[in-house]
């Protein structure tokens, strides 16, 4: 079932003051949730002189759209390419590896299956920061510091939870489907690719969206493994801007707005997948 659509039947509240109270609370909540975004947009459109005025004016006069051009000029296209490469590799790689692994655990018999599965489960509770130290040592030994493969592979490998999720999901599919196909001569790749994956589309999309969100927003691992600006994703560049002293506030807020844009668009297009993905994963991490 989906969370996105409230199944609550619209019932008319008998007391109008109750509705007024509900709306008052909803609007108050909305104001708080929107506050930082409004601040960001307002500041990103201010002139340099207006930024440091107290009390702050929320409506910029004049509106300086050029800040966005300046901000994009400073960021350049490179961080976006890096973020897209990183996010794309993680989503596709993890999607493939976790569904295949999930299928193996759900539908195949092989030695040490249960022991291996327990090992997977055992790593679920391990915070990434714990693994980050030995990972860094390993990546340094491989000479992969400051490379795409050093950035991508350890995160791609972070798929124990996805494997677990898809194993559960595939096990819930009726086994007769696979059996029937087997009788017709289909082998496991057929069953996986033509039956199980198509049936899992909603779960796949939800998992993909959450994985994309996590990768696009990831900070700790890129911070640890990357040194040169040419390889840094947007999120890391924003953090770097934020800590540099000479950053102009209006330009910085424009940069943040630009960095948010791709995930915002994804959210507008597929809000329900965000919601389903979170209900499905509890957004671990």
């Amino acid at each position, binding site marked *: 079932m989906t*969370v996105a659509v*409230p*199944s*609550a*039947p619209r019932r008319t509240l008998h007391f109008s003051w*109750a509705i007024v109270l509900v709306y008052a609370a909803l609007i108050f909540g909305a104001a708080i*949730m929107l*506050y930082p975004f409004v*601040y*960001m947009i307002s500041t990103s459109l201010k002139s340099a002189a207006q930024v*440091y005025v107290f009390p702050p004016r929320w409506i910029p006069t004049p509106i300086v759209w050029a800040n966005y051009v300046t901000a994009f000029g400073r960021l350049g296209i490179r961080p976006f390419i890096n973020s897209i490469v990183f996010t794309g590799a993680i989503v596709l790689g993890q999607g493939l590896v976790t569904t*295949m*692994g999930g299928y*193996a655990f759900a539908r*195949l*018999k*092989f030695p040490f*299956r249960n022991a291996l599965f327990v090992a997977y489960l055992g*790593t679920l509770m*391990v*915070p*990434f*920061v714990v*693994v*980050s*130290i*030995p990972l860094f*040592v*390993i990546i340094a030994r491989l000479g992969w510091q400051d490379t795409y493969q050093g950035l991508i592979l*350890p995160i791609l*490998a972070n*798929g*124990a939870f996805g494997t677990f999720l898809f194993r559960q999901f595939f096990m819930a599919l009726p086994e007769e489907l696979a059996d029937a196909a087997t009788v017709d*001569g289909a082998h*496991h790749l057929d*069953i996986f690719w*033509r*039956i199980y994956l*198509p*049936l899992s*589309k909603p779960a796949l999309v*939800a998992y993909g969206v959450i994985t994309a969100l996590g990768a*696009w927003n990831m*900070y700790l691992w890129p911070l640890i493994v990357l040194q040169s600006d040419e390889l840094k994703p947007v999120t890391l560049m924003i953090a770097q*801007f*934020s*800590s540099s002293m000479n950053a102009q506030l209006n330009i*910085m*807020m424009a940069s*943040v707005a630009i*960095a*948010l844009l791709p*995930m915002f668009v994804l*959210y507008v297009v597929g809000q329900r997948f965000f919601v389903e993905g*979170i*209900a*499905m*994963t*509890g957004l671990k*991490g």
Partner: protein
Amino acid sequence: MASTVAAPLPEPVKVTARLGRPAAPLRRRDWLWALFFLGPNLLLFLAFTLGPMLYGFGVSFVDWNMLQPARFVGIGNYVQFFVADQLTGRVVGNSVYYALGALPAAVLIPLGLAVLLNVGVRGTGLFRSIYFLPLVASVVAASTIFKWIYAKDFGTINQLTGLFGIPRQDWLFDEKLVIPALIVVAVWHRIPLNIILYLAALQNVPRTLYEAARIDGAGAWAQFRYVTWPMVTPTTFFVLIITVINLTVGGFDQVSVMTQGNPLNASNIMVFNIWRTAFVYFQMGYASAMAYILFAVVLLFTAVQWWLQRRWVHY
């Protein structure tokens, strides 16, 4: 748990029939297929998850800066954390303050908002979209924005508090205010996630229970207190634990962007301290030991959740 996945309906599936291949040998070749399906996954898992986990545990027993050879120190790093390190008390205290300080608001506000969204008034969809909006912001982006909202001389928080006659504060540079300031951001960022978990739970509450309560004359509060609250208790436990774990383990991005642990370690929390010990001071052994202590805390929280769920949850 509240995780319900959209259950797909089995549709008729066309599979190209391959005649003359009996099913029996296929079963025997299962492990070959397993190698094909699980192989890449397992390789990555061993090389970059399980391997590093065990390796890191080993590193926690040595003194090592990655330049000179590692020196075995036994439980020395753990002793240093619990006995010798002057910073331990401060850092642990900050972490507990940060996590537990954020917890009540990070659980109760989403519960309240989820209940409001579940009333089903006109415009609910719009409000829901607004409440979920922090999802699109990375912690880094949110922290960057809030860092300037908190600025002493031109930040908008001081404008807001000024309305109540509170003098301007230097939120992120004040030892007493810095953690509360971080907590506000953490709660703000956490709200959508917990709303979603609560909304899923609220929809599983049978409508008939509310109807029965109304027939018995229960008002809005009584319905919440005697129907909603007990029915969402399992979710509340789940939300409590997952939130406290995320706050304990997370928080790095926020501290890294907003304060770097300043002023005077007043906002230095465990994760940030581990990162700094490893990647600024290059005390890999000591950082690993602290990381494993953090892991132990996470395991403890999980154990508590299991235990509590057995004892207290009303089903």
